[in-house]
């Protein structure tokens, strides 16, 4: 008969792990906010450090950065929200006409669809009734409160970075600080690089969409440009959304304009995928497409839209962690160099100049 002995320590460990998982499930929304704040912290820290290096007090530097961000978001909202409202009112009033136009356009290609009748049947009063408005209002308020919380948390993290570093380093054994330093630098480079790279690609798609829609005479060009900049953050499907909405809006003007807008935006997508993204991100992310797909699907399943947005930085963090763990166990050598050398005993390993401290080179006389 097999006698199973379990130590008290193992039982305590299992209980602690289960309690940790339970606490995580209960505190998940807060953990999500803190994780998001850490991502923004990584992105903004170089700018704060730059201001600090120019003798500006840290707190003031953080305030300057946060005020600048709030200012930019406020200015964009002031541009976009009224335009979006106008667009919605216009859509509501003229949907039947637009549907009629689309019907005729598709009819030219031999495609028969009943759209205008369906548009006429839409009960707008029911769609935007009091309860629906309250529901959406509550969601908007939750998102706004979440954004403010993330901003405040990010500000605290930026101000307290030196104290945070001291807290982290006190758990690092002496002599291992350079490795921790390297890990933190790598994490900051990957996460910060992702956010900054995303800002660049979003800014580019904003400018391009705005110019194209302005030239094509599509109303509310700026609103669609901001929408394109925002959905560009969503991996895989963001690019499609960025094309569909402006094209539909252009169709309200004329089918020809819609085709031109569609063609130009598709062309831009190719430019972004093949030229811009590889140059902006470089080796920052370097994630295989399959990993991106799995990360996005998993993120979406776990956390919805927030999970989709966090999927890329989370996958990049996981890759840095995996690389660190792999190198820590010498597997990096095993995977990149000859297996015999990697697993050979120390005495049997060939001497490499400048790679090992305990294998001296020939002493200079």
């Amino acid at each position, binding site marked *: 008969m097999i006698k199973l002995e379990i130590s008290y320590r193992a039982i305590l460990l299992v209980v602690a792990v289960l309690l940790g998982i339970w606490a995580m499930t209960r505190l998940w929304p807060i953990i999500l906010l803190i994780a998001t704040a850490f991502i923004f912290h990584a992105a903004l820290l170089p700018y704060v450090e730059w201001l600090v*290096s120019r003798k500006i007090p840290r707190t003031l530097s953080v305030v300057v950065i946060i005020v600048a961000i709030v200012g930019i978001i406020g200015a964009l909202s002031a541009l976009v929200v009224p335009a979006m409202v106008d667009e919605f009112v216009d859509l509501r009033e003229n949907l039947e006409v637009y549907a009629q136009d689309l019907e005729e356009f598709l009819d030219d290609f031999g495609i028969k669809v009943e759209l205008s009748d369906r548009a006429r049947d839409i009960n707008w009063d029911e769609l935007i009734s009091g309860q629906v408005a309250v529901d959406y209002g509550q969601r908007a308020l939750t998102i706004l409160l979440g954004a403010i919380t993330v901003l405040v948390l990010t500000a605290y993290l930026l101000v307290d970075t*030196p104290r945070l*570093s*001291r*807290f*982290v*380093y*006190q758990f*690092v*054994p*002496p*002599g*291992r*600080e*350079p*490795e921790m*330093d390297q890990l933190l630098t790598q994490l900051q480079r990957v996460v910060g690089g992702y956010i900054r790279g995303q800002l660049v690609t979003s800014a580019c798609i904003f400018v391009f969409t705005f110019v194209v829609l302005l030239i094509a005479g599509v109303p509310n060009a700026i609103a669609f440009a901001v929408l394109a900049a925002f959905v560009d953050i969503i991996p895989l499907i963001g690019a499609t959304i960025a094309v569909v909405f402006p094209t539909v809006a252009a169709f309200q003007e004329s089918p020809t304009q819609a085709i031109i807008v569609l063609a130009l935006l598709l062309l831009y997508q190719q430019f972004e995928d093949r030229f811009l993204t590889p140059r902006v991100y470089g080796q920052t992310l370097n994630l295989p497409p399959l990993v991106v797909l799995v990360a996005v699907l998993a993120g979406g399943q776990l956390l919805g839209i927030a999970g989709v947005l966090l999927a890329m930085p989370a996958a990049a963090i996981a890759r840095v962690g995996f690389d660190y763990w792999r190198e820590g166990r010498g597997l990096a050598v095993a995977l990149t160099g000859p297996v015999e050398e990697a697993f050979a005993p120390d005495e049997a390993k060939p001497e490499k100049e*400048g*790679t*090992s*401290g*305990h*294998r*001296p*080179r*020939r*002493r*200079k006389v």
Partner: protein
Amino acid sequence: MVIARGVGKCEEDHPGSYGYPSRPEEPYDFCSQCGKPMIWECSSCGTALPDDSGELATARFCRECGTAYFSEQDAEKGKQPK
């Protein structure tokens, strides 16, 4: 301002560091565990000790000039370089 950072060790291979958060700002002279003298760089050419903790633990000779970090001890152990 550039903050100097580094790692070192004593004859007994006890590692140490300075310049990192929560660590002494300057290199210190004696090991906090055994009290033996600490080294932070090669006494001959001034090259810093290896950053990698694995290498640091086993390094007995400077990787640049080959000088023994702790010559008397290494001579006793017969590890003097050729």
